[in-house]
């Protein structure tokens, strides 16, 4: 048991623990905040593995931005207390549908992840000096080899942003 292994176990326990607790809490805001802690744990794992850039990008994107989206979504979709409750039959139908969709999505994600893990050829760990990934190398790789993917992602995000603006803009009263 070296300090590196102990720190890895600590990170794993915090990440998985908070994620697991987030599944079972009643208070949905608490769930969201615990989820943020889990994301921070994943960032800590990246740091542990020596991937500084990815770790800080993870914090910037997930802890900074995605958490805000989750919290805003929770606040905007809270059930109103004065809303008329739907008929008993529709509730049951909706619940079944939600269960079905949820399990289907979970199964799909699990299949993809497991397939990806199983089919990836893991190289034997390098025994010589650990490779150092400087930010500059990552930038050069992104802007050179993978520039096409970067551009596509950029266009996709711009389209999403424009769509959000169109949806949020007030309609013309004519």
């Amino acid at each position, binding site marked *: 048991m070296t300090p590196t292994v102990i720190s890895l176990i600590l990170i794993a326990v915090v990440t998985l623990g908070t994620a697991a607790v987030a599944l079972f809490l009643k208070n949905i805001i608490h769930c969201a905040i615990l989820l943020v802690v889990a994301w921070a744990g994943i960032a800590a794992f990246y740091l542990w593995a020596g991937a500084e850039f990815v770790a800080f990008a993870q914090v*910037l994107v997930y802890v900074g931005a995605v958490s805000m989206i989750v919290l805003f979504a929770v606040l905007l979709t809270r059930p109103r207390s004065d809303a008329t409750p739907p008929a008993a039959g529709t509730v049951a139908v909706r619940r079944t549908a939600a269960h079905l969709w949820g399990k289907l999505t979970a199964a799909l994600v699990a299949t993809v992840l497991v397939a990806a893990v199983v089919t990836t050829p893991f190289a034997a760990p390098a025994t010589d000096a650990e490779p150092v990934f400087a930010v500059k190398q990552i930038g050069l790789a992104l802007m050179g080899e993978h520039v096409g993917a970067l551009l596509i992602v950029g266009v996709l995000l711009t389209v999403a942003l424009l769509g959000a603006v169109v949806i949020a803009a007030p309609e013309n009263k004519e």
Partner: protein
Amino acid sequence: MTVDSYTALAKHFAAIVAETTTPTGAAAPAPFLETLPADVLNWVVNFLPDDAHWLRWFLTSIVAIVAILTVFGLTFAFLTVTERKLLGRFQNRYGPNRVRIFGVRVFGFFQPFADAVKALTKEDIVPTAADKVLHLAAPAATVAFSLLGFAVLPYGRHLTALAGMDAALLYFFAAGAASELAIFMAGWSSLNKYSLIAAMRALAQLISYELPLLLVAVPAVMVAGTLSLSGIVEAQGGWLGGVVPHWNIFTPWGFAGAIIFYIAALAECNRCPFDLPEGESEIIAGYLTEYSGFKYALFFMGEYFGMAALSGLGVALFLGGWQAPCEFLQFVPSYVWFYVKLVVVILSFMWMRATLLRLRMDQLMRLAWKCLVPLALVNLATVVFWERTAGWDGPALQAVRWLAALALVVVPFVLLGKTLSAGFGPRKYRYA
């Protein structure tokens, strides 16, 4: 993890310690004061045996943390009283001048100690319906997140807590992004409509102004070719004729960038004229409504730490960090220059607070999205032009370069200002 990789990691930490403690790159023997902090650190760490890498790394971290907390804690304390005194003078009154310790009264500059005692002994009121855990966690998170940024600021030539970090700027912004979460926690857990509204307004403001803040930091990175703040500061070394420093602010893109950064930084740390989240007259101190006693003081502490950290980032990006303004002034230690610049920037923040009026919410949003973001994008184009023409020789080409870059900065600003302010200006005061 094998024993081999463990020793490799330990060596890695030892390298970091060596990097932070031993001055490098100084051709002439560095003056005593310049290397004093590093020497003290070496002296402390050398009490440990040579092969205890983990312990040495741990002790180095602890010393850095204690030093940062002491310096910026005291800075925070005296900034509060300075702000009150300055605001007093701006408003033609004295400000706090009563507190004395053992009969010594230094113009009331012992006020923060009295304030601390008051904040600690005040009753801590928590609303019955509040979410207790989050209500307690919010002020702690505010202070913790605002402190994180200090780790990567280059305080001096040999004085950066995390000198080995490659992605320092990214780390700084990542640490800042988490502070929004703390504000949301404070607003939501109070179970108070004013708190929640204010937290939402604060989030909208912080998210909006983070964009220009990030965008104007990019040119400095492009010119220096590194994300490390020490590297960015070193790239600004040198003087024109020994007098005019090569700071980023003295280039067209740097000047425009510094102004945008200044405005966005004011908004990011909720300072007047952007202090809408805690607008006392509109939303009764916003997300701080349900806080009292020491928790309230903690929020203020976090705010001042955040302000100091952002000012430090601005100093490093645009004002040459620890570089001396003139060549013959280099005998003053570099960390003194950094601190002087930092204090000047913070004092100018206070001046702004005394001078400008609070904006309205829609004005705030318009300024961020319609003005600062496009100008920051234009600034990116300007810096690309500036870098592409770096090889131009001779006074004529240099003049063309400067004029073109200035035009690239000034023309969009004037056009944008004219378009945006069409139909808004000038205001007539009929009853005053």
